[in-house]
């Protein structure tokens, strides 16, 4: 994560490199998760068994949304994420070891094993997520309100899917944030589906940045899952929020390479769709940009990739090495005393 700086004409190579490294980290993290998630589920695919049980929503392909905005945030800024939270968590700087331990259900996890993959809370970097569609938006409004009440320039970012933009919480939150002129940014990741339901079957209009008009706030649309375009839209939105000019809705066209959750038979989409999307992998595109236009050496890139992967490997190892909580620990943490 970098700190906020003045708006600049172009994107500095340092920031591009940061984004690249986070994207690689996120992707590698999830590639590992694909494998880990199947561990212990043989012979039958059993959601409640194995090293990592429960639902698993991966964000592979959607990394640009997360890094393009988090590159502008500090740890005083708040991020709320939905059920598909890994890329956001990583870009926001959540403790990767504790996060992985949480997903493994270990006592060293962010929530001592009580939360799991959909419920990651790292107050150190003001990150949270949750399993109820659109429910994180009001929480971000509350963070933005706190920022305003305390006279800070902190911003709050709520990530949601395009499906979530049709939930009532979206409307109520944006109206409230606009009314109170709060430093809120809602990032809508349009990955074309809400589980099996295509966007055109859930959303009455083309894209959710158009809904900015319903609240008198700014709206921006990012095409082609482009991390640099996302960087720029986010830069403007963050500057607007920090300077007291109110909320922004950013919608980004992004790609969901995997199923809604691991195990999704994906009968609702064309078999050829994903290979086509994979061709447009934003990580490959950014790598090319770094090596070709920005003249970053192959060696340096590989160094970054290695560092990212090492961090991930260490996090998984930490999770594996950690203990499960004692069963009776289930009774703790309902109330603080």
């Amino acid at each position, binding site marked *: 994560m970098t700190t906020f700086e003045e708006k600049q004409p172009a994107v500095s190579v340092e920031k591009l490199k940061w984004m690249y490294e986070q994207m690689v980290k996120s992707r590698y993290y999830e590639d590992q998760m694909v494998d880990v998630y199947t561990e212990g589920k043989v012979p039958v695919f059993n959601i409640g068994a194995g090293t990592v049980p429960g639902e698993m929503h991966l964000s592979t392909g959607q990394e640009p949304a997360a890094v393009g905005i988090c590159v502008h945030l500090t740890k005083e800024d708040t991020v709320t994420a939905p059920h598909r939270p890994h890329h956001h968590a990583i870009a926001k700087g959540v403790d990767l070891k504790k996060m992985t331990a949480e997903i493994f259900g270990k006592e060293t996890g962010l929530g001592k094993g009580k939360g799991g993959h959909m419920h990651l809370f790292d107050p150190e970097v003001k990150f949270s997520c949750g399993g*109820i569609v659109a429910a994180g938006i009001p929480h971000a409004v509350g963070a933005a309100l706190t920022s305003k009440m305390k006279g800070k320039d902190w911003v709050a970012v709520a990530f949601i899917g395009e499906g979530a933009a049709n939930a009532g919480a979206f409307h109520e939150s944006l109206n409230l944030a606009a009314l109170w002129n709060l430093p809120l940014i809602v990032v809508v990741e349009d990955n074309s589906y809400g589980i099996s339901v295509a966007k055109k079957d859930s959303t009455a209009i083309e894209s959710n940045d158009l809904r900015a008009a319903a609240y008198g706030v700014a709206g921006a649309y990012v095409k082609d899952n482009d991390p640099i375009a996302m960087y720029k839209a986010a830069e403007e939105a963050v500057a607007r929020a920090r300077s007291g000019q109110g909320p922004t809705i950013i919608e980004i066209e992004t790609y969901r390479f995997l199923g809604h959750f691991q195990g999704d038979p994906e009968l609702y989409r064309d078999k050829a769709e994903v290979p086509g999307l994979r061709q447009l992998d934003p990580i490959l595109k950014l790598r090319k940009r770094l090596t070709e236009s920005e003249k970053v050496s192959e060696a340096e890139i590989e160094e970054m990739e290695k560092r990212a992967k090492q961090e991930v490997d260490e996090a998984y190892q930490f999770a594996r090495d950690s203990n499960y909580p004692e069963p009776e620990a289930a009774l703790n943490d309902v109330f603080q005393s």
Partner: protein
Amino acid sequence: MAEAIALEMEQDPSVFVLGEDIGKYGGIFGSTQGLIDKFGQERVLDTPISETAFIGAAIGAAAEGMRPIAELMFVDFFGVCMDQIYNHMAKIPYMSGGNVRLPMVLMTAVGGGYNDAAQHSQTLYATFGHMPGMKVVAPSTPYDLKGMMISAIRDDNPVLFMFHKSLQGLGWMEQLDVAVDHVPEESYTVPLDKAKVVREGSDVTIVGIQMMTHYAVEAAEKLSKEDGIEAEVIDLRSVAPIDKKTILSSIKKTRRLVVVDEDYLSYGMTAEVAAIAAEEALYDLEAPVRRIAVPDVPIPYSRPLEDFVIPGPEKIYQQVKKLMDEE
């Protein structure tokens, strides 16, 4: 279940289904499998993630004589649409003095045990049972699922139909024998207000519901084999209205009551059943009532934690044995 819906859709054009991922996907828990192929998207409507709108729309359609079946994907999501359920679906028939009928079914998946954590693992039987104006059912066998769904669709009152994820016979869940029973192909009904004695016994009554019924039977078999204790097991089936008679006559026979629930303990189903006993069978009881339920904590994610809070056959066995030993 999808079979039951299909049978009713065939014979009554006013029946239709709406909800999230109930079309091509066939329902995340398979509740609408195959319906879209049979009946098309005019009668099997995938909705946006707008529970208030589409459950409210089901209410509006029911008021105009349709017989909608709406699916709330997980019962845990009730909070985004509870106003429609509690203040409208359940109350409009009464507030209108019976002039408006709402012949609709709201079906929803309940239950934990597969590490889906606090926002996807609840049953919330009592949350709905507490609210007058809805019938609330929670069948536990494939036979009852089908028969009660048909009854629910034909009922002129709003019915909240809870099906247990682990009892849907899904390929991606633990396979339970009880979930893959053979079911008659033709149409039949099972009443919405009757509990069922699923195992006879003379020493103690165990009242369970859905998953807990199966666990109670397992515990009862072990009690019989290892300890010579014969437990009578009642499958509650209907949360509201609750079938007091079946419960009370079993207590009269066994004189001991254990209640097992996958919902939270306080203000839960175990409370209601225990209270019925305290009010109407006090002199029959020879020992204190025992309640086994999720202790008052949200459902934790990690396996040892979740296993600790959701009652299993072993815990039921131990508790019943302890109760019998105490005397």
